[in-house]
């Protein structure tokens, strides 16, 4: 496996090998699936949306519906206005969503299609809506694309002078349906009412009932996005994924907005609960404190298996920062921390976590804009005991015979993972259990027969 990966590192300027990110449009598509009765639409050649639907379906094991402007060479020369017009008419005629959420691609961006004017010129059926965002594939990554789409909904729909309501706005960031459900649980326990944008639970963890619905129940209602302008405050989770939505709601509607890391790990969850406590003026309920206590109990009970274990953590920036926090709390030693998404803020955030835990940075590599090839080379030079990250890491796990725990996006080779949160206390509890299982199984596999302990 990966036998052509040499140990010696050559500086690369032109070549990306085994990427640790993908392009903006797939993130935009995912975000749009979290809006009620919305059909995501890719303005470009039809291969893009085919790939994006495929990736999302493989991650969630759920249908991911989206349409395309199906550009041909002609449209690429003369512009995609006619294709968009035709698409919108056909989509409302045949599929009848309430809203079409258009995102651009590198194709439509390179030819300079002006989506604002295209959309203004559309003749829409009564009550139907078309929104858009710009997601050129040669900028950012799927994570920023996600943020662009959420911001697009806000730009088109959130009303500046919406009536004030006793709710907060919550941007959950690029997370799984299981995380959304955990966020809802925390909000309910803290007695905070929130408009969550987007809400992909149900759309991407739908139950089996024997009936297929193209637009399943759930998702953020349009009316809620309109009403966002009147919320008390917006909590935007995920420093990168929710950055653009946070800026947009603040500048457009003047809503007080706070951009926070994903509530991952004990301290991260504590901080989030304190925020909610501030908003609801109610104490943290005993139920959550007990849950927290059980988690700390688990971490202390099992600490000896984590001590001095070196771990490589890779995936999307917001998630990886959260995973680093979790790893540090467990007592693991994060050795390599990598994301493919560009942006030095990631490095700063990750380093701050080391500082907060008084962990030295000697020998630690933290990199944004990295790829899995480079991570593999680091590991070849100085090995680690555990990998925590996305499915493509399994190649490295096999090549170097390192145990691996899957977390983040995309996870293409597991079922049921998206039901489980990574956020909140349950997120850390699960990751700790998975990491322990992986490390202990490895010990059992490798130890001499006489060292096999039934009790650990």
């Amino acid at each position, binding site marked *: 496996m990966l036998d052509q990966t040499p140990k010696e590192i*050559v500086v690369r300027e032109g070549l*990306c090998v085994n990427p640790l990110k993908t392009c903006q449009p797939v993130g935009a598509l995912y975000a749009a699936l979290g809006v009620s009765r919305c059909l995501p639409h890719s303005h470009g050649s039809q291969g893009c949306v085919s790939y994006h639907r495929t990736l999302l379906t493989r991650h969630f094991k759920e249908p991911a519906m989206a349409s395309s402007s199906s550009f041909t*060479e002609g449209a690429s020369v003369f512009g995609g206005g006619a294709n968009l017009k035709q698409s919108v008419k056909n989509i409302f005629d045949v599929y009848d969503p309430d809203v079409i959420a258009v995102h651009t691609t590198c194709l439509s961006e*390179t030819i300079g299609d002006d989506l604002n004017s295209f959309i203004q010129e559309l003749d829409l059926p009564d009550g139907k809506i078309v929104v858009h965002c710009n997601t050129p594939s040669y900028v950012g990554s799927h994570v920023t694309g996600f943020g662009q789409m959420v911001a697009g909904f806000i730009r088109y729909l959130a009303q500046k002078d919406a009536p004030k309501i006793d709710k907060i706005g919550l941007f959950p960031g690029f997370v799984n349906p299981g995380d959304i459900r955990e966020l809802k649980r925390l909000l309910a326990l803290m007695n905070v009412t929130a408009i969550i944008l987007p809400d992909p639970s149900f759309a991407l963890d739908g139950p*089996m009932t*024997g009936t297929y619905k193209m637009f399943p129940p759930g998702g953020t209602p349009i009316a809620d996005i309109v009403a966002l302008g009147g919320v008390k405050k917006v909590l935007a989770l995920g420093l990168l994924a929710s950055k653009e939505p946070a800026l947009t709601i603040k500048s457009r509607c003047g809503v007080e907005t706070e951009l926070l890391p994903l509530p991952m790990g004990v301290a991260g969850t504590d901080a989030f609960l304190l925020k909610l406590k501030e908003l609801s003026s109610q104490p943290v309920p005993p139920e959550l404190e007990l849950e927290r206590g059980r988690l700390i109990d688990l971490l202390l009970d099992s600490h000896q298996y984590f001590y001095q274990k070196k771990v490589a953590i890779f995936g999307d920036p917001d998630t990886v920062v959260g995973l680093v926090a979790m790893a540090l709390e467990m007592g693991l030693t994060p050795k390599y921390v990598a994301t493919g998404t560009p942006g030095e803020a990631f490095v700063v955030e990750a380093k701050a976590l080391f500082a907060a835990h008084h962990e030295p940075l000697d020998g630690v590599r933290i990199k944004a804009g990295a790829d899995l090839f480079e991570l593999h080379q680091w590991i070849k030079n100085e090995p680690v005991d555990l990998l925590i990250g996305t499915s493509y890491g399994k190649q490295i796990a096999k090549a170097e015979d390192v145990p691996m725990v899957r977390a983040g996006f995309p996870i293409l080779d597991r079922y049921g993972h998206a039901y489980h949160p990574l956020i909140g206390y349950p997120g850390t509890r699960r990751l700790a259990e998975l990491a322990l299982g992986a490390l202990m199984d490895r010990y059992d596999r490798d130890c001499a027969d006489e060292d096999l302990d039934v009790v650990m």
Partner: protein
Amino acid sequence: MDFKSAVLGKYNARIYKNRKDHILEVKEGLVQKIDANTRAVPGLMTNRGCCYAGCKGVVVGPLKDTCVITHGPIGCGFYSWGTRRNKARPDADGNNFIQYCFSTDMQEPDIVFGGEKKLKKAIDEVMAIFKPKRIMICSTCPVGLIGDDIHAVASQAEKDYGITCVAFSCEGYKGVSQSAGHHIANNGLMKKIIGTDDGGLLGPRSINLLGEYNIGGDGWETERLLKKIGYHVVAVFTGDGSAADIARSHRADLNLVQCHRSINYVAEMMKTAFGVNWLKVNFIGLSSIAKSLRDMATFFGDPEIIERTEAVIDEEVKAVTPEMAAYKSRLQGKTAAIFVGGSRSHHYQDLLRDFGVKTVLAGYEFGHRDDYEGREVIPDIKEDADSKNIENLTVSPDRRYRAFLSPERYLELKEAIGLEEYAGLIRAMADGGWVVDDLNHFETEEMIRLLKPDLFFSGIKDKFVAQKAGVVCRQLHSYDYSGPYAGYRGAANFGRDLTMGLYAPAWRLVTPPWREVESA
């Protein structure tokens, strides 16, 4: 109301006009015409992919001894990395580049100021790190739009490094589906790889296996059979394939064509340039395998091989018969719909028949009229604006042209085993079956509702749609991470997978008991 009227009845005038000739009911004995390989209707949710997917994803991606660089923003390379299950083992030099994704990961400045410099740098770095003998470059949409001359970069790389470097202008917007990319890839292989190595001896009864991508190990199972009978497989296009093998493939005695759509261009060009006859085969389904093997034996006309063929068929059939029978007893009488790329919707009907499963609807994502109606319609297919943009490479007989058959024997065999012929999908279907080209999401939902197949064979985008509607859906692109399905062993695997899909215990648990009480 029949399926076609029901579907078309819900369309607006423009979609109606476009779609009406893509759907037909099979009438045995009638020559039927279908619209295919035309533009998808924007917004209608086609399952199709793009030209790049056909070129890089399908045809050149599986070459294990070649570094295939995707020139473009990161997405295209990422999505086509390790996702198609085209298995490969390292080549003689220990190389297996299909585990890797090479991309220029173009950023905004590359789009504004041009990406050639970055591509050159990427090639330099590939050479410095991986030292391949061959590099291929596949373009993505923006590359064609900004006018990067990837062909010039490739020529320069050949001069600088003494390697073979092939550039494919397979921008996603070209053509109307993956199909354009297959054609572009075929042209590139013909121009730059096929016939570039005249060294070494080939064994007797040398063949190439074309249009076999070794999904789930299909190619390996097929090769096992062929070798067991006594054929020398020179090159496989392109599953577990290598450009080094393809370079020698022009000297083989016969080309076998499994997936007609994606590789028929190479088959035709090799016939013209090097005299290699081609035979349409199908190694999916017991009767099809036997027919293919017997046709091959007839082609070589060697009594020993004819005898060996019968012995192998007999032995292989016997080995799977008990298992096949067990699955057939649980599958007999079920119905299926198949919607896959450009050949499997035909091939798998033969295998389903082995289990007593009737195909009620079949269609191709990106087939052409000849894949539906047979190759004889090719002269009647009108070029349109989209197909005109794809180069039609003209080749002439090479100095190494060598016909395996005498002219008389050729005529005889052309009739007997259908050399250079393909009869298409429609003829394979029973009266009253539906054929739908480029089945879209709406039509899929309607198909499930109206035709109620027990089994639906499609891809990952449809899988959970069908499953949520209560219909077992098996992916015929990836085999749901199972396989092989080719060959005799593969047929049994397929039967096992259908049986487990139809009889998964969880199907009985869908309705909670309190609901059952309510509805009783």
